[in-house]
């Protein structure tokens, strides 16, 4: 078989089970591609020895029969996941050299299912960013380019390395994490599929924490079927995460019938932002027509607190980050600044954190410190938590009125150029998450599916938002949209 790295999880699984291919062959194909893709800067820690060992074990298991779906599938793992004995530094200099003595629950589950780890993937530092430009490893690069241009584009963020690696076929799929859109925005920027499950579906144990009430891990894949297969392997109750839901995990793939007749799809009027590019508006209208043609009922809905989602997020996420990142003190792991004579423990903390954290992380930690400080806690933090209640209530009301899923754009634009936003104020960058952040605040599942291209040939995606715990139904609606859109374009190889 040729181009093994280009296979989907489903195709590879079927070929592995039939004995047409071995996991070692798949793994070697991916390792070869990774070697030639240094220009994308997607893989930042390479683990070929582990990959080959896992592939051989997977092949033995496949031979013995009865192997799980993920057995033998080569994956990339976002650097935010702690992987035993392998550098896991959340793309931050403050965790330079950190090699966990334990394995995150998600990677444990994937490896127990026989999946193969090719290496760790680039990302924004501590997952704080929308362009992968805050990484200690440097920028990850989008394999897509504008027609007739060789300008380097962002793969989005924070899961930029994951998106770039999957879009460029360096691996069959990758793990991502999503706090405000960090799976869905990069998926949309690179023409791949990414799902953030309901808060509590996937264990956060062993995933470096950013904002604990918003963080969820999920798969980034080449299509919806693969998202269903890989999500199932990542989900499940975990006693080590107190917010993990003790619910049965359905067979998501079996729910992909493509039949959405009689489903009600909501189109939220507040997502029609002022100044929205005509191409995004058109993409959204076309997606609406596709779902309608597939037999869904389309209704206009209102989510009145939408405009307050980003400001709410930029109180809550930094507040939680300031607390979570307090642990990086130069004592237990990672970087410690070299100290001058007479420096005490306070100087050690201050110098370590100034050297170890990048600019965006420092800014968010300090904003979080401010909104939690005496005198401002009520005005900012408590108020934001109240508005969050209202944002969630907006969704509850439309779901109670019979809406099964909500269709929105995934991003306000196609991928932008690396460095293009560097002169803009931080708020302009934050606006990238305008359509995705509501979903994290309300704890809902959301999926980005590529459905079209812009005039320069760059992929564009739509987002579907589902009811809590109904990822299976959401994936099925996404599957229907994917089939109708028929997006199959791939980036031309330049790297």
């Amino acid at each position, binding site marked *: 078989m040729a181009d093994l790295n280009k296979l989907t999880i489903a195709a590879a699984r079927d070929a592995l089970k039939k004995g047409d291919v071995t996991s070692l062959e798949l793994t070697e194909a991916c390792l070869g591609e990774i070697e030639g893709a240094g220009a994308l800067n997607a893989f930042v820690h390479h683990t070929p020895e582990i990959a080959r060992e896992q592939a051989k074990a997977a092949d033995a298991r496949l031979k013995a029969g009865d192997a799980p779906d993920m057995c033998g599938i080569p994956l990339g793992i976002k650097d935010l996941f702690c992987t035993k004995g392998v550098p896991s530094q959340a793309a931050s200099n403050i965790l330079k050299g950190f090699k966990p*003595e334990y394995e995150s629950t998600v990677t444990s589950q994937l490896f127990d299912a026989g999946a193969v780890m090719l290496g760790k993937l680039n990302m924004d530092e501590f997952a704080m960013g929308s362009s992968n430009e805050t990484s200690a490893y440097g920028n990850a690069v989008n394999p897509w380019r504008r027609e007739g241009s060789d300008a380097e584009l962002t793969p989005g963020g924070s899961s930029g390395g994951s998106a770039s690696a999957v879009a460029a076929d360096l691996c069959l799929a990758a793990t991502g994490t999503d706090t405000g859109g960090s799976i869905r925005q990069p998926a949309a920027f690179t023409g791949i599929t990414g799902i953030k499950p309901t808060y509590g579906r996937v264990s956060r144990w062993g995933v470096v924490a950013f904002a604990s009430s918003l963080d969820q891990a999920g798969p980034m894949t080449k299509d919806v079927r693969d998202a269903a297969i890989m999500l199932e392997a990542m989900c499940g109750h975990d006693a080590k995460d*107190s917010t993990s839901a003790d619910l049965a995990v359905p067979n998501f793939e079996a729910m992909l019938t493509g039949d959405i007749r009689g489903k009600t799809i909501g189109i939220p009027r507040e997502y029609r932002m002022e100044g929205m590019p005509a191409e995004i508006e058109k993409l959204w209208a076309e997606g609406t027509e596709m779902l309608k043609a597939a037999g869904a009922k389309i209704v206009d809905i209102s989510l009145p607190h939408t405009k*307050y989602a980003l400001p709410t997020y*930029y109180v809550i996420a930094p507040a939680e980050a300031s607390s979570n990142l*307090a642990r990086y003190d130069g004592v237990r792991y990672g970087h410690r600044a070299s100290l001058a004579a007479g420096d005490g*423990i306070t100087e050690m903390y201050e110098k370590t954190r100034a050297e170890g954290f990048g600019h965006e992380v420092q*800014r968010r930690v300090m904003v979080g410190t401010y909104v939690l400080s005496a005198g401002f806690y009520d005005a900012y933090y408590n108020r934001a*938590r109240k508005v969050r209640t209202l944002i969630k209530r907006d969704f509850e009301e439309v779901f109670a009125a019979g809406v099964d899923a909500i269709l929105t754009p995934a991003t306000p634009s196609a991928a932008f150029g690396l460095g293009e936003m560097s002169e803009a104020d931080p708020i302009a960058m934050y606006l990238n998450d305008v359509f995705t952040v509501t979903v994290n605040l309300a704890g809902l599942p959301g999926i980005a599916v590529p459905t079209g291209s812009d005039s320069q040939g760059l992929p564009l995606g739509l987002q579907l938002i589902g009811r809590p715990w109904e990822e299976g139904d959401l994936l099925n609606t996404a599957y229907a949209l994917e089939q109708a859109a028929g997006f199959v374009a791939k980036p031309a190889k330049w790297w």
Partner: protein
Amino acid sequence: MSIDKDTAAKVAKLARIRVEAADLPALAEEFNAVLGFIEQLSEVDVEGVEPMVSVTPMRLPRREDVVSDGGQQAKVLANAPDAREGFFAVPKVVE
């Protein structure tokens, strides 16, 4: 509400991040941009609204109050920048 460089210095101190005096005005300006953005929340009528504690209504699970793990001193210390005689080592804290 506008943040001056003294407030920026105070916040940096609370966050235990060293910021050079020369960088404080720029930092204060960045804070003001972000705070100006989140200021819109004051428009929202939140009268009688409960602040969200947990996004999915749930009671945190409880477990027996027993030792369930431990005896991993070497692993705990393995990544420390400075560990001696089975302890984390830090600069002198008490005179």
